[in-house]
């Protein structure tokens, strides 16, 4: 018997401790000018201006855009949205979502790179940083320096300006939900009540922390949209990508030369230095990439200096890179694009229809279910109803009430109701008929209200019951 299991010897492996949490490494972004940076600036300014100016506009003696949550009324210029019209808000959100899906499928993360408030405010904060603390290298140096009066001055100037921008942002945001002129006066006279004050402070701090301190951390670890966008991508989606076929092998060289053993990438690291999320685009598509295209601007500037054709890093598609075709073009006839745009069109039409068909008066009829047997005169049968009338107008209305029903059925009591501006009234009414003139157990009846111009109707039932 020599069937021993052969002995195997294992050297104990190197055991090392791994921290599952990692401290954020500060990203020093290098400033870059270029085509895509210009697009961001020119599209950003009008949007920012709109954001800051909109709440101050007036419309018919009231704030033009005001989301009055306590009163549950949204004012958007000439439009007043009541809680009854809430489906409009739902439709708007659906439209926004599908708009985002469609754009993302076609053009990648355009929202992230150009219009997302996180990106825009981070850009503003970076701009301030650059103005106060200087260029990328100066900032790295400044952070390494011992604390000095000069460093303290620069740092406090930066944070002071950040806080000022953050406060303007927070104040403006609260101004969409609270009358903004009142709010401005309260800031000026230090007399803001606790509720708006705490919201202003909250949004100020949120802006300051997110755009000043968190930056790419928000996109990488907090934003859900960043994480589920990959499901909208397909091989024809525009992405910011490095072309390894052309660029590799990378290597440094003299200006204006093209060594035969090297690709077009001069390995200058500029694309890494300008990246606000701190990635190397040459490693391929990464979830951190917000498609801001700063690396394209950076690379193009180098290619220009080297007299190489531009576009080593460019907006392209996965298929274009794979097939190594420069002029691949954008294919729009893809299932995802077609489905998203169809849903978008349908939802937009429904939305438009809902907005244009908002009624200025609303009538609801609730048949009284309690006490079927009311003490009415003998031989009469009576049904009671509660009319709920909503006056969405800014003026009072005199409503006349009538009944579209067989002649025997008569309305008892007041037939005119005066509604105050924006009043909701529950109005009890009674309908009586001599019992022998009521044929059938259940009669359909229609309540009609009229403000002189238009009629509004609501159906109900008249039930014959004998005690």
């Amino acid at each position, binding site marked *: 018997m020599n069937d021993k299991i052969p002995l195997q010897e294992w050297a104990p492996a190197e055991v090392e401790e791994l921290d599952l949490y990692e401290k954020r490494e500060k990203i020093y972004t290098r400033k870059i000018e270029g085509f895509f940076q210009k697009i961001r600036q020119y599209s950003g300014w009008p949007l920012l201006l709109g954001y800051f100016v909109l709440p101050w506009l007036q419309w018919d003696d009231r704030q033009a855009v005001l989301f009055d949550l306590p009163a549950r009324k949204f004012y958007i210029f000439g439009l007043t949205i009541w809680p009854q019209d809430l489906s409009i808000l739902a439709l708007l959100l659906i439209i926004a979502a599908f708009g985002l899906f469609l754009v993302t499928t076609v053009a990648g993360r355009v929202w992230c790179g150009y219009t997302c408030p996180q990106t825009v405010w981070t850009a503003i904060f970076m701009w301030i940083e650059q103005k106060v603390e200087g260029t990328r290298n100066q900032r790295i140096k400044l952070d390494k320096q011992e604390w000095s009066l000069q460093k303290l001055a620069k740092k406090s100037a930066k944070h002071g300006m950040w806080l000022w921008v953050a406060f303007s942002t927070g104040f403006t945001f609260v101004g969409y939900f609270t009358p903004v002129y009142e709010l401005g006066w309260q800031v000026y006279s230090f007399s803001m009540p606790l509720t708006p004050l705490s919201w202003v402070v909250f949004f100020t701090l949120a802006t300051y922390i997110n755009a000043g301190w968190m930056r790419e951390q928000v996109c990488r670890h907090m934003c859900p949209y960043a994480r589920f966008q990959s499901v909208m991508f397909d091989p024809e989606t525009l992405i910011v990508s490095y072309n390894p076929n052309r660029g590799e092998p990378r290597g440094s060289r003299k200006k204006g030369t093209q060594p035969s053993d090297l690709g077009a990438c001069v390995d200058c690291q500029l694309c890494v230095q300008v990246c606000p999320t701190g990635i190397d685009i040459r490693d391929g598509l990464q979830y951190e990439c917000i498609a801001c295209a700063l690396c394209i601007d950076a690379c193009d500037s180098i290619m220009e200096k080297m007299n190489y054709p531009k576009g080593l890093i460019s907006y392209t598609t996965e298929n274009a890179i794979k097939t190594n075709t420069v002029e691949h073009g954008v294919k729009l006839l893809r299932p995802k694009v077609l489905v998203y745009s169809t849903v978008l069109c349908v939802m937009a039409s429904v939305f438009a229809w809902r907005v244009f068909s908002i009624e200025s008066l609303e009538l609801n009829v609730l048949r009284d279910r309690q006490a079927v047997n009311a003490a009415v005169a003998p031989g009469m049968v009576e049904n009671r109803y*509660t009319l709920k009338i909503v006056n969405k107008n800014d003026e009072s209305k005199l409503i006349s009430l009538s009944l579209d029903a067989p002649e025997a059925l008569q309305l008892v009591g007041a037939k005119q109701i005066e509604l105050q501006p924006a009043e909701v009234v529950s109005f009890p009414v009674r309908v009586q008929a001599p019992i022998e003139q009521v044929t059938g157990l259940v009669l359909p009846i229609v309540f009609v209200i009229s403000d002189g111009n238009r009629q509004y109707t609501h159906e109900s039932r008249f039930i014959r019951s004998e005690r």
Partner: protein
Amino acid sequence: MTGFWSAWVIGLTIITLILLVWLLFATRKIKVERDDNTTGHVYDGIVEEDNPLPAWWFNMFVLTMIFGVGYLIAYPGMGSFQGMLGWSSANEHDRRAQELEESFASSISEFHGLGVEQLAANDRAVNMGRRLFSTNCSVCHGSAGQGGFGFPKLDDNDWQWGGSPDQIVHSIAKGRQAMMIAWKDILGPQNLPLVASYVASLSEGAAARNNISSVAPADLAKGKDLYMKNCVACHGADGSGNQLLGAPALNDDIWLYGGSLSEIQVSFSAGRNGQMPAHQGLLSDDKINLIAAYVLSLSADQ
């Protein structure tokens, strides 16, 4: 909560908290045997890459735990311990209710001190009264005050307890208790139909409906005799009732419990105990006045 269950909840809560803190710190770092940017974990050939979470994430965990401990000290959560702030949902309810009362009181301050008749002439006051009526009174008296079986109709000019503003306010604030005792044994079962016929004969409408003219005059006279002995003290010789006692008029054609012979007979033979609950304390005086104004306005149209 008994002492045992209180201790049980406290014990479980503390053990869970300690375990969670331990779990967080114990899994903060792991030992790996390789240096290839993986955690060394392989499941069915799938390698777990080392993608560390941000450190502020860990700090947030710690903060939530500190918050949790602070919360359990400040608010009720630890068994029957009520928390240092003395917060309770009952207190919260009372505070909110008081806030609401105050905001309501200020919104009707223009009506404060006005008499019920003045209020009844004011459309805004009547509108407010109608809303208060819908909330507080319509369950019994109907959405438009039309009443129901056993619940007085309020939109006519017939009043069991009086229709002056003061009497209406009194009815709402202090309540009313009607007392019709059971007369079955006192009158004797054989006499009940006779009295019922006589009572019906007092009202023109009821007399016609119940065909009183076909009742034998002798029976009607017997009924009248019994009525005069037993009922007249409250309901009056002519059946006009007595508002001070809440004794309804019998000579009109308004019947709280039905006007057929059998219904009339049931009412007095078995007795009736109609009750209007007192609303003083449930509703402020201002609210009671507004409701009274609305009730008054209902009958003003008639």
